[in-house]
């Protein structure tokens, strides 16, 4: 079983390389990338079934002596995240195909490489290897963002590349300091070596700043809404499900292993998460187009995902994991609606839109269902996630963290209503009809994908029990990481 782990990134990487060779043959490229995502998904499911009840599967790549070896480890969180990211990739690929966005000869190879970097970041238990995985993922994303090469893409590209390069440099300096102080980059060994060592803690603080920037935590969030809106609409769907979520995943991993033993940090995590939620949602309310509002929301939601780390109870972390899974799906659906609107109406600026609920009722429903889930209204999956999060915050004594989450939910609803009134109600402004540039099948797929996710999000509300049980298994492994520690540190 453990020999399967390297496949999670080796297969997408090979698919990317082959895809580059097959530049002119779009059908073959598509097949390769979809196969890569399906392999990652299948691996995630198989590994999840294996490690579900607290087990950890490890692989000692190349069988190097202890201390030199890069150890790969899959615990329930990593396995679940493999499934989630592969699923998000499939959704983004479908939207890209329907919009004709995957026509660039490098699109598919880049998506496959991005997935390879993400998968490696999820399964590695080695700090320097994590840096490499981040770079593989980010380099692919830099090129994907700037692929169309227009004015806005270049400007957004410089902001995005600049911020992430700076974060990567800090990360590398942090790795150097931590290695200098402790003599290891194995995450499990660092778990015992770092917390009492001031020099290692200095390095860790650099790492933390870098990961916070990549996850989009306030005050290091400014690049996210500036960059993502200028990517292709399907690329935004992809970035939303993969990039910042990997940053959040690394925060979960680092907190579970190391940060939880650093005294005095927990209240700061809660505070940063709360400020992130508020700043993100206020920015979202001020947005003028669908994607602008939705990308600013990502910042706000990162706050929801990070807040449980300041509490570190099984209930809170389980709620965070459940919220993460349903949020990735819901956000992908909302961004897919924005992408569809852009294709069908020629624009996603609220000023250009109106009356969509009458002219395109299916698209209206496809927006409404995930929007309700994002705002956390019953009976959707978002309601279950937020209810559990807020309940866990109050139970852990962080009443103001819970209060902030409640308030931010209201503003989230407000921003969704803003899109609803701007684009779906009212009258359509006088504007030439863009006509049908897409075939009927592609149009149906564009609307069908978010509609299906929206229906699933509503059904998942009342039927959340199995997912919640899974989330509790994941959270148990994070709050008590002894299984991970003994599996990763070899005798």
């Amino acid at each position, binding site marked *: 079983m453990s020999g399967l782990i390297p496949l999670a990134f080796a297969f997408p990487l090979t698919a990317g390389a082959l895809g580059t060779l097959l530049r002119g043959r779009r059908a073959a490229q598509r097949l390769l990338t979809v196969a890569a995502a399906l392999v990652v998904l299948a691996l995630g499911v198989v590994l999840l079934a294996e490690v579900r009840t607290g087990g950890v599967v490890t692989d000692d790549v190349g069988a190097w002596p202890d201390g030199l070896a890069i150890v790969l480890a899959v615990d329930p969180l990593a396995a679940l995240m493999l499934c989630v990211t592969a699923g998000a990739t499939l959704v983004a690929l479908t939207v890209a195909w329907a919009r004709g966005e995957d026509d660039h000869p490098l699109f598919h190879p880049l998506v496959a490489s991005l997935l390879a970097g993400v998968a490696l970041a999820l399964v590695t238990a080695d700090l320097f290897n994590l840096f490499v995985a981040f*770079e593989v993922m980010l380099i692919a994303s830099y090129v994907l963002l700037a692929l169309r090469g227009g004015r806005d893409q270049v400007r957004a590209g410089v902001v995005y590349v600049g911020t992430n390069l700076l974060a990567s440099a800090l990360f590398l300096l942090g790795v*150097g300091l931590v290695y200098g102080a402790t003599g290891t980059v194995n995450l499990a060994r660092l778990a015992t070596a770092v917390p009492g060592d001031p020099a290692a803690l200095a390095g860790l603080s650099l790492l933390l700043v870098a990961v916070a920037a990549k996850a989009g935590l306030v005050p290091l969030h400014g690049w996210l809404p500036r960059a993502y809106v200028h990517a292709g609409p399907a690329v935004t769907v992809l970035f939303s499900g993969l990039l910042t979520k990997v940053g959040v995943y690394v925060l979960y991993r680092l907190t579970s292993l190391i940060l939880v033993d650093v005294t005095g940090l927990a209240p700061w995590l809660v505070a940063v998460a709360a400020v992130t939620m508020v700043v993100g949602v206020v920015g979202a309310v001020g947005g003028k187009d669908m994607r602008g509002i939705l990308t600013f929301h990502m910042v706000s939601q990162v706050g929801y995902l990070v807040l449980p780390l300041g509490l570190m109870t099984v209930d809170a972390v389980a709620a965070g994991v459940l919220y993460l899974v349903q949020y990735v799906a819901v956000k992908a659906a909302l961004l897919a609606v924005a992408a569809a609107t852009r294709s069908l109406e020629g624009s996603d600026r609220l000023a250009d839109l109106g009356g969509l609920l009458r002219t395109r009722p299916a698209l209206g429903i496809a927006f409404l269902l995930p929007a309700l889930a994002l705002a956390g209204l019953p009976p959707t999956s978002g309601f279950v996630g937020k209810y559990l999060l807020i309940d866990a915050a109050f139970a852990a004594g962080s009443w103001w963290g819970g209060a902030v989450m409640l308030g931010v939910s209201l503003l989230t609803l407000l921003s969704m209503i803003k899109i609803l009134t701007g684009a779906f109600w009212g009258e359509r402004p006088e504007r030439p009809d863009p006509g049908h540039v897409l075939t009927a099948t592609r149009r149906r797929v564009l609307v069908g994908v978010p509609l299906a996710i929206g229906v699933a999000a509503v059904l998942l509300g009342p039927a959340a029990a199995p997912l919640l049980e899974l989330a509790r298994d994941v959270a148990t492994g994070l709050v008590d990481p002894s299984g991970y520690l003994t599996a990763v540190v070899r005798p």
Partner: protein
Amino acid sequence: MSAAVVVGLLAAGGTYLVLQRGVVRVALGFTLLGHAATTLLIAAGGADARGVPFAGAGPGAADPLPQAFALTAIVISLGLTAFLLALAFRSRDVHGSDDLETTEGER
């Protein structure tokens, strides 16, 4: 000690250049920051141990791990510098300048 001074100078120069407006200067700044990180990684292995990093080479052998880190980091930073310079080139094509402040248009 000398390694610390070198890292400090490189990081200071890099930070100064990264805060400049032109993309070419930013690219040069990241090159300096990359060198700072590489030097730090090598120093983290112990600046005194300079022997051949082979297994069983004795007490003076250098730590092989930081050298592997440094090599990887150099390759990555080379690729990214190339990409940033390509962006600067493209920026001159579409904006007429690699200076982002003068090209700040709609939004």
